[in-house]
């Protein structure tokens, strides 16, 4: 009796605060989002307690279809570029001489210890029409008039790739590290060429890393509104900016809630696909 009381006290004292915290500041707020998605926006930017499905119906307006298509496309482009650029990079780090490896990984992490907005601001400075790169190119005589680089879709893509590259590289790096070199030797001894070893041995064995890296790139990219704010010219509207606007300028919270639910659903579908091939533990 006393022992079980003590055990319960122990459980409460250790996991209790976390459970309480997650319930209060994560689960209840998420339930609020679902709740508000069924309510009606009133004229003052607030919410009336009239239950409706109209917010969900308005999702099917063509303008939102374009926003979703553009956002998913941007996230896909970001993920593919991060994979193509990041895989060889992860491979090089993983195969570097042993004493160099920790240093190279640290060098990869270092920029990401500093604020992402400050770094994006750095790109903003570089790409401006009157910015450093244009100045430099004009000084070299390569171009006569400055190029319009900032506030384009390309700049947004650059910002996204920049912000997310390490999230692609690190899981891939981990899975390449786990590769057993004797497998590669065996494949080589059995007559497989370099290309064959890569496509038949290395690539399949590092798939968990590729999947984890893709998920960790794709999902955050959907919500990074500040990158499209700083790098994009507001010509293309992305889902993150659309959600942000519903809470700031448009003051249509129910619609913002519905859009967030769409983001959650996309995330859940991707996670569902992911857990078929990898484990949650690889994500953290």
């Amino acid at each position: 009796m006393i022992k079980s009381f003590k055990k319960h006290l122990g459980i409460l004292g250790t996991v209790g605060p976390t459970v309480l915290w997650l319930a209060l500041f994560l689960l209840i707020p998420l339930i609020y989002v679902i709740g508000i998605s069924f309510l009606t926006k009133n004229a003052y930017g607030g919410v009336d307690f009239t239950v409706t499905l109209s917010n969900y119906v308005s999702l099917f307006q063509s303008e939102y279809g374009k926003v979703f298509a553009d956002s998913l496309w941007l996230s896909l482009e970001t993920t593919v570029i991060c994979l193509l650029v990041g895989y060889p990079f992860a491979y090089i780090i993983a195969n570097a001489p042993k004493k160099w490896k920790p240093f190279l990984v640290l060098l990869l992490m270092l920029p990401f210890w500093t604020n992402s907005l400050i770094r994006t601001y750095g790109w903003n400075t570089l790409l401006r029409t009157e910015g450093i790169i244009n100045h430099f190119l004009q000084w070299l005589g390569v171009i006569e008039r400055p190029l319009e680089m900032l506030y384009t879709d390309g700049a947004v893509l650059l910002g996204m790739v920049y912000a997310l590259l390490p999230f692609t590289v690190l899981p891939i790096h981990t899975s390449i590290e786990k590769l057993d070199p004797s497998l590669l030797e065996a494949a080589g001894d059995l007559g497989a060429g370099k290309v064959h070893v890569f496509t038949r041995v290395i690539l399949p064995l590092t798939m968990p890393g590729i999947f984890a890296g893709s998920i960790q790139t794709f999902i955050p990219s959907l919500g990074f509104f500040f990158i499209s704010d700083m790098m994009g010219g507001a010509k293309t509207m992305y889902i993150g900016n659309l959600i942000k606007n519903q809470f700031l300028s448009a003051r249509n919270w129910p619609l913002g809630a519905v859009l967030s639910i769409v983001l959650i659903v996309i995330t859940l579908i991707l996670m569902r696909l992911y857990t078929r091939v990898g484990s949650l533990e690889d994500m953290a």
Partner: protein
Amino acid sequence: MKKQRRIHEFKPGSVFYACLIYLFLYLPIFVVIAFSFNTSKMNITFEGFTLEWYGRMFENRQLMQSFFNTIIVAGVSTVISVIIGTLCALGLYKFEFKLKNVLSSSLYIPIVIPELVFAIALLIFFTSLNVSMNMATLIISHVTFSMPFVVITVRARLAGFDRSIEEAARDLGANEFRTFMRVTLPMISPGVLSGGMLALTMSLDDVVVSFFTAGPESTTLPLKILGMVRKGVSPDVNALSTLMIVGTIVILLTSTIIQGRLERKM
């Protein structure tokens, strides 16, 4: 053996590619730092070296306030995250209870869902309770996304933990508290430290969640910069950003070194 060595050496092509990527990663940081020493007020060309902006930034009240807010939020939210996160990891390690799996999976929710979603969830939640955004709402939000990382990191450390050492301590007459302080805590300290550093970086790096849960009086440095970018940013912002970059890197490098020492002691 020979084959082994061949894999682990630098090839010129690889070195060139890696350097290119590192350049890409560091370029914007160098730009921010370089322009903090520029005599020109415009971030276009480098005209001359000056330390003027490092003095000027102190005159910019709002800017300094946002900088201090950033530090306070990061510090306080890290301490809270480390305390309740470590407790939770210990509880998950020590006890078996109903819904344990539910709790362990719930910890991944803030990690996998886009920050934007729970940022607006918290905004809706606080607003509906008539709480206006202030430092407290900001700190609460930061703890919510950083605490799970502490739990997961400390838990990973505990997974490799030899329970018999704790038992030995108790057999030798140490009570539970003493056992915890002298055996368990030193063993998990590298995990606690790296969890804490993760929480600190997450907080310092955050833009999205702070954007929605900070009030006008509790704006952070990144939010301040976001507001200024379209109109043009003055170099004192670069100076302060440089301080923040250098400060973060120094703190984290130090902790990486301490962590290495702690682990070697084990």
